[in-house]
């Protein structure tokens, strides 16, 4: 009996190891990656097995430099001592837009009388990551009353990697587009002449397209909820 148990335990361990090996691809934490190459999402296996919320470390790239953030903290490099595993990346359904696409969003459909909430963000922006869980909650609570478009300013190379990985980790369901422009200035001015591009930036437009709330920096959720409630005439 004990022999069978031992075989079972050994099989279980081997099976788990092979299963994980097939699912995960070992990648050195500090490996240099050429520009434009898809970047993996890193998970701490030890904490994953312990079934704690997975602390996802996302690697993004800015001006050719890798930027890492783990548990909402930007770190200079991934800890080398920790095993890092590359998981299969989720399929991206994030649409790329240009300046004209942005203007189309801002012009709105005249038949659509719902207020419009727009949030400008990027995975490299700590204030954006800080406020994102609140925006996800707001989206969940007001989905049937307002339109919400989330506009990321990440680089286009991140559209199928870092951005969807971050959204998946946040359990975000709002529509997300990636604004890809060579020069950000016309896009920034198309949104607001008084905005200089500081992220995050959040705008709420009423049914007529008038800005009724704007905030630069991580939102205070109660303030945004109050502004939305005023437009929709009730609390969620």
């Amino acid at each position, binding site marked *: 009996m004990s022999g069978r148990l031992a075989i079972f335990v050994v099989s279980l361990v081997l099976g788990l190891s092979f299963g994980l090996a097939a699912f995960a691809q070992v990648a050195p934490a500090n490996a240099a990656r050429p520009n434009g190459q898809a970047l993996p999402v890193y998970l701490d296996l030890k904490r994953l097995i312990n079934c704690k919320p997975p602390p996802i470390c996302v690697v993004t790239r800015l001006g050719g430099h890798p930027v890492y953030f783990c548990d909402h903290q930007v770190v200079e490099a991934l800890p080398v001592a920790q095993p890092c595993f590359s998981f299969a990346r989720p399929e991206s359904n994030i649409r790329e837009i240009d300046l004209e696409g942005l203007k189309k969003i801002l012009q709105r459909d005249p038949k659509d009388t719902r207020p419009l909430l727009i949030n*400008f963000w990027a995975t490299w922006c700590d204030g954006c990551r800080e406020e994102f869980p609140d925006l996800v909650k707001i989206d969940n609570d007001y989905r049937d009353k307002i339109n919400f478009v989330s506009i990321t300013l990440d680089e286009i190379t991140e559209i199928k990697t870092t951005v969807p990985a971050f959204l998946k980790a946040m359990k975000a369901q709002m529509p997300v587009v990636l604004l890809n422009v060579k020069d*950000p*200035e016309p896009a920034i001015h198309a949104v607001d002449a008084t905005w200089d591009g*500081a*992220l995050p930036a959040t705008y709420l437009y009423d049914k007529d397209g008038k800005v009724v709330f704007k905030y*630069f920096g991580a939102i205070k959720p109660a303030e945004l909820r109050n502004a939305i409630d005023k437009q929709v005439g009730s609390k969620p």
Partner: protein
Amino acid sequence: MKKHYALTLFLASIVIVAFAAVAGSGSTSDLPAPPAIGTTLDDFKLPDADGAEHSLKSLTGKNGAVIIFIATKCPVSNAYNDRMEKLAQDYKAKGINVIGINSNNTEPAAEVKSHAGEKHLTFTILKDDGNKIADRLGATRTPEAYVIDAGGKLVYHGRIDNAQNTANITSNDLRDALDELVSGKQVSKTGGAAFGCTIKRVS
């Protein structure tokens, strides 16, 4: 009695109108407006990461100065480290000094010092505790540049260039402004917007 009633009604209506005005405008970020181009900036004093005080006047070169609000943790600001250092080197010989200011309340002086060492930033970096100078200049993001001439007059306020990735630069706004300033011309493009990290102010 009637007089009291009318006065109360009048005061109440003022309160209601004031409340409606505030509520109607929605909650907006209460950011100070930056000085207009052409304004002469008042001199100020700030300590560097070692605690030594410097005035804007003492740091201004014979042709002017560039104040850049920078950060240790903002990836956009960090993407510009090499460009800012090169800028400081290139324009020092032309009489324009680069001055970094860190106004983030999340980044203490010791961190500013170690960051400058690691990233080989040799220009003077001042620590703006309580974001007083960021408030005075209406600075909102990192990196954000202000150019003053030798007399302290603001001639440019905005971005360094149009792209975080050096491969995509098509508009060198800050360098163009400095070249015009050095050659005694009027700065033709006095600003430019770009995406950056919000300055972490004291709450």
